[in-house]
Every structure is written in C-alpha cells, then in structure tokens.
C-alpha cells in the first residue's frame, strides 16, 4: 500500500507563512536579462512582424502612411514659423524648413514608439496572465515596429533636403548614428512606462500631455538660437534635445557632431551644439535602457496580477 497522508481540517492550517521563510527573487542581473532577451530574439521579431503586418494590412496607402505623421509635424512647424516670421518681420530660411523635416524624423519615432509601447503591456494582459515568455519583448517589439516608418521618413528627408536647396554632406551619417542611439533611448523609456501603465492606468494620458509639451520644449519647432543664450542652454539640456538637434546640425547644416556649433542670432552668438551633447546622449541611452530593464524585470512577477 502506498503512503496516504490525510491532514486535518482547513481551519487548523496556518494562516500565514513563518517570517523566516524568504522568497527567491527573480534574476535581475543586467547580463542575464540581456542574455535571455537575446535567446528570445525570434519572439521579438515575431511580435514586431505582427504589429507591422496588422498596421499596414488595413492602410490603403501602405508605407506612404509612414509619412503622414512626419508631414503633419512639418506642416504644423511651418505654420508656426510663418506666424513667427510675420510677427518678427524676418524671412524663413530654406535651411529652417529642411531642419523642420529632419527634426520631425526622431520626434515622430520617439513619440509614436512611446505611445504604442506604453499601452502594449496592458493590451497583452490576456497573454501575460496565461503564458510565460520574457515580457520585455512586448514593449521592445512595439518600439521596433516603428522602425520601418523611421527608415522611410529618413530616406524621404535625405531626398528632400537637396531639393529644398541645402546640400547634403557626409556628416549626415552622424544623423544615422544618433537615430540608432535614439532607438535604445526610446526602448529605455518604453520599458519603464509600459510597466508603469500596468500599475497606474493614467500613465498613458500623462504621457500624451508630456509629449504635447515636449514638442515645444525640445528643438522640434523652435530653433535654440531663437531663445537666446540662456534659453538655448536650457532647451539643449533636456534629455531628448540632443537627438533632435543633432539631426539639424549633422544632416541639414552639414557639421560634425564632434565640434561645437555657434550660430548668430539678433541677440548675439548662441551655442547650438557642443560635443559633450553626444556623450550626454550616449550616457542617457545606456542608463535609461539598463535601468528600464532592471525595473521592468523586478516588477514583472506582479504583471499577471495587475493585468
């Protein structure tokens, strides 16, 4: 006969664990998280492909749809500039228009990627409660799903800039490098905000408000030199600014990012780029992405209960 253990009635069970009992936490070392994510890269690709397929399946225009958002930003920027120039009686330079287009590229990627990524975990709550897989793959894939749009809009900008009458230089490659950094920067934010949105459902609204401010606070519509010396310094110190300003400096103005750039304004010379801003962008991206992964992993054990 096998051993049968019959214990007493439920009421006699202990109702809380002894305090000496501890929990083995999830592995949170960055190297282990990255290793696991690398192992599940096929999953990230599958999620990304699904998102892209679904997004473009219904759109009649196909990838031309990728240009709608950048065009709207450029259009809004143009209206803004025209109003400003009539108020101040100064003409709009063609470089300014080209700059608007170049700077719309990182902005649209950042705001679009972050908006979809922030809601991505909640949108997958059903799956999260049922199946295990590295949860990071969801927000990362939804940022990656914006990559085709980024590439299409970058190519269009590179075609349009010479047409507007601004010659392209090899320094435009700096722009590509900065955009790659921006992807890492966006993923960092996406990891933090997507899990924050799971715990606090109003995060996505707060994000929208912040993005509406951000388009004016960062050099998307404005040029730093319009704000004078102090204003420019403050604007350029904002975390997203180096990524946006670099597109103007490297792609439109044809300057290397390793040298400072000083522009003249009615209020005197204004520094619009300094080499340390490149280092700032690198450090910001690295810290955000690492912190994002660790915060995300630490809280991921609670996702299934929140979702």
């Amino acid at each position: 006969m096998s051993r049968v253990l019959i214990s007493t009635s439920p009421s006699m069970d202990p109702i809380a664990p002894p305090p000496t009992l501890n929990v083995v936490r999830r592995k949170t070392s960055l190297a282990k998280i990255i290793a696991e994510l690398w192992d599940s890269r096929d999953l990230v690709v599958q999620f990304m492909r699904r998102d892209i397929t679904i997004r473009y399946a219904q759109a009649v225009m196909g990838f031309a749809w990728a240009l709608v958002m950048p065009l709207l930003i450029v259009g809004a920027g143009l209206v803004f500039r025209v109003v400003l120039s009539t108020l101040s009686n100064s003409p709009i330079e063609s470089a300014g228009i080209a700059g608007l287009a170049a700077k719309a590229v990182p902005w649209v990627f950042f705001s679009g990627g972050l908006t979809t990524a922030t809601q991505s975990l909640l949108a997958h709550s059903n799956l999260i409660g049922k199946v295990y897989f590295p949860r990071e793959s969801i927000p990362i894939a939804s940022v990656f799903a914006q990559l085709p749009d980024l590439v299409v809009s970058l190519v269009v900008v590179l075609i349009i800039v010479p047409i507007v009458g601004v010659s392209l230089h090899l320094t435009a490659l700096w722009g590509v490098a900065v955009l790659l950094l921006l992807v890492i920067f966006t993923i960092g934010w996406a990891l933090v905000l997507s899990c924050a949105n799971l715990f606090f459902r109003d995060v996505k609204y707060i994000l929208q408000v912040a993005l509406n401010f951000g388009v004016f606070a960062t050099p998307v519509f404005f040029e730093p030199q319009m704000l004078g010396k102090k204003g420019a310094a403050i604007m350029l110190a904002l975390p997203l600014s180096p990524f946006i300003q670099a597109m103007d400096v490297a792609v439109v103005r044809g300057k290397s990012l390793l040298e400072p750039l000083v522009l003249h304004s009615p209020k005197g010379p204004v520094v619009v780029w300094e080499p340390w801003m490149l280092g700032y962008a690198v450090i910001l991206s690295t810290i955000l992405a690492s912190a994002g992964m660790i915060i995300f992993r630490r809280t991921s054990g609670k996702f299934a209960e929140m979702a």
Partner: protein
Amino acid sequence: MTPYLAFERVWKKFKRGQTHDSLRDLVPAMARRLIGRPHVEHKGSSRTFWALRDLSFEVKPGEVLGIIGSNGAGKSTTLKILNRIMDPTAGTVRTEGRIGALIEVSAGFHQDLTGRQNIFLQGAIMGMRKAEVERKFDEIVAFAGIDDFLDTPVKRYSSGMNARLGFSIAAHLEPDILIIDEVLAVGDAAFQQKAFGRIKQMATGGAPVVLVSHQLDRIAELCTKAIVLDHGATRVEGAPLDCINAYLHGIARTTPATDSGVKIRFDRVFGPNGQAVASGQEITIIVTGTADLEAAPEGWSPAFRIRDTATATQVHSVTGLQRGIPLPVTGEFEYHLTLQMNVQPGRYTVEPVIWNAISNETILTGPSLPIEVLERLPFYCEVQLNSRWLAPKLAAVPPSADSKAERQSA
C-alpha cells in the same frame, strides 16, 4: 543537467478588490499619509487571502504529478507560479530545464493573421526558435489537419480548428519539464483521442510532468503520484488512485462526525490487497467498525456503494435493509460483502456508508477501497452477462449463405 522541479513551502497571497490603479488615486493617498491623516480604505481593498498555503512537492524525471482539487483550490495558481507567470509571496520554486506548458494553447493567436503566420507567432511565444518551428512546420499542420486553411486568417477558423492548431503547436514543443492543464478536451472526439495519445506520449517521455485535470481517469492513467489541493493546502498526497478516492468522497467526511451525535464509525476496509481483479471475478470486502448507540435510529441501515472512479457514477449499491443485515448498536462489528465484478474494465471504489432510508440521507461515509478491474474476456457493450455458448449439434448443418440467397431470389 537533470530536469527537475520543486515547490518548497510556497505561499501565495492575493488581494481581493482593487489596488491603486491610477496615479490620480495614489498621489492623494500618499499626501494623506504624509500629513498623518489615516488612510481611507476602499471598500474591501485590504482584504487578502492565501491562495496557496505551505505547498511543497517535487517532480523528478520519469515522474508525473497529478494535481486534483475543486475550483478555487489553488490548482491554477500553482501552475502559474510553476510557469513563472507569477512569483510566490513566500517560499521557493526550483526548476532546472526549459519549461513547456500545454496551457491556453491558442492564447497568442492574432485573429487577423493567417494560420501560417500564427504558427510562427504562437511557436515563438511558447519559446520555440524560428528554425525549430520551420523544422516542425509540416508536422504541426498535418497534426492539426488545417492544410487547406493555412493562408486563411484565423478569424475565419471554426473554434475547433482554432483549438486544434493551438494544441498542435504546443504538442510539438520539446521541453525539459512539461506542464499540462485541461487542454485534453479540444476539438471533436477523433481529435481528442489523437490529442490524448500525444499527451500520453509526451508525459511518458521521461521528463518531469505536472498535470492538472478534472478528468480523473486521465490522472489515474497518466500520473505516477498525486496531491489533492483544498483551500490552497495539500490535503492528501500519495498514489493517484488513493488521492482520487479521497477527493471524490470528500476528505472531511472520512472522519466520523462524532460531534453531530453519530456514535458509529467505520475503521478499516479490506479488499483484494490492492491487486487488480479480472472482470467477472468474485471478491470479498471486509469492513470493520465500532458503534456506541443506545438503539438503532429509525431508518438507519448499513450499505455499500460501488462507484466508477472516473465518472463518480454509482454502478451498484446494496443496503442492509434489502438483505436483512441489521445496524450494529454497540461494540465492534465486521461485515463481509462478496461482489462479482461484472463490470467494464476500469477503476472502481467501494465505500461503506450508513444510510437513512426514511430521509434518504447519507449519515456517514467510511474509508473507500479502490479496485482495479482488468479485462478477462473481451468486454463489449454495457453489461457482462457471462454468456456460455454451447457447441452446436452438428447433425443439422445450416444451409450455406449462397444457397440461402438463391432461394430468396427464386
């Protein structure tokens, strides 16, 4: 690496009701705490309950653990913690090896994608590499039987096709550790048969397996050991059949309710020593007990019930009332019951009860005895009539089929 799986004193606490769900609520709550005002409780927000209480088990290669329990006993929570969907509140979960789960097998499907696209998507979600899915693609499609609909969006699939495809993807995982939950019943009868065959093949492949199912006959067939969960704690552990019996007969009822005034109890039940019997064989059941009644209450009678373990249906019962066996009033007693097991091969339980013929209530249920019946003669249809067929007298040879046909057509 030896695949391995263990729960060590695992506890899991859940909150009933809402927690802070928006910053809008959290900020005032924090401000209130800062200025020292008492926290305003939402209705029921702080009520917690333990879904798992001190649960421990381990599963080694070659072992199949069955988890039995009614709804809300903690089975799903156990599986979710095993599968790393949730973390335990206290205690340790040790796993060694890649875990594959036959749970919610089509959860990752996107309705607008085609069957082909969904195979890759769901495969990746379950932890398969793209190359692995490509290698098994044809097998998956063939098993699910959806060849003609590969490039049709899943939203046009019938629910059966959907489930078949999901099961088929999961069934082609090659995990080190296998977790199975209630996916045994998908699709039509033919597919269920096929699916169960596949599960059996996977479960007996040597990996550590945890199986949760309400189909107790499947637990009995597949598992090497089992536990019965009740309110998040292990109530019974041991051989699958013992656990199933304990579960079916309600663990609480096996101890006599002395405080309810019933001063009679069954102590032990003996049968064919745990050995399987052949269909049609006679067995004797011996039951011992003690009684301390002043007089036999009106209508009370000893009785036996024989149930089909898998379905819990009663296949036979016999009462002392019918057979003139009185209820024991004082002292120890012993009953002998002989049964001829004219039943389908399968698993049965015999339980002694005290039954009130007037109110038609069961007063007391004794410890139950599992009996396994094997096939002796080919057993078809519902009942075993022990037919005996005598050899025909060969004097009158029946006309052949041909001559019969000729005569009819003539």
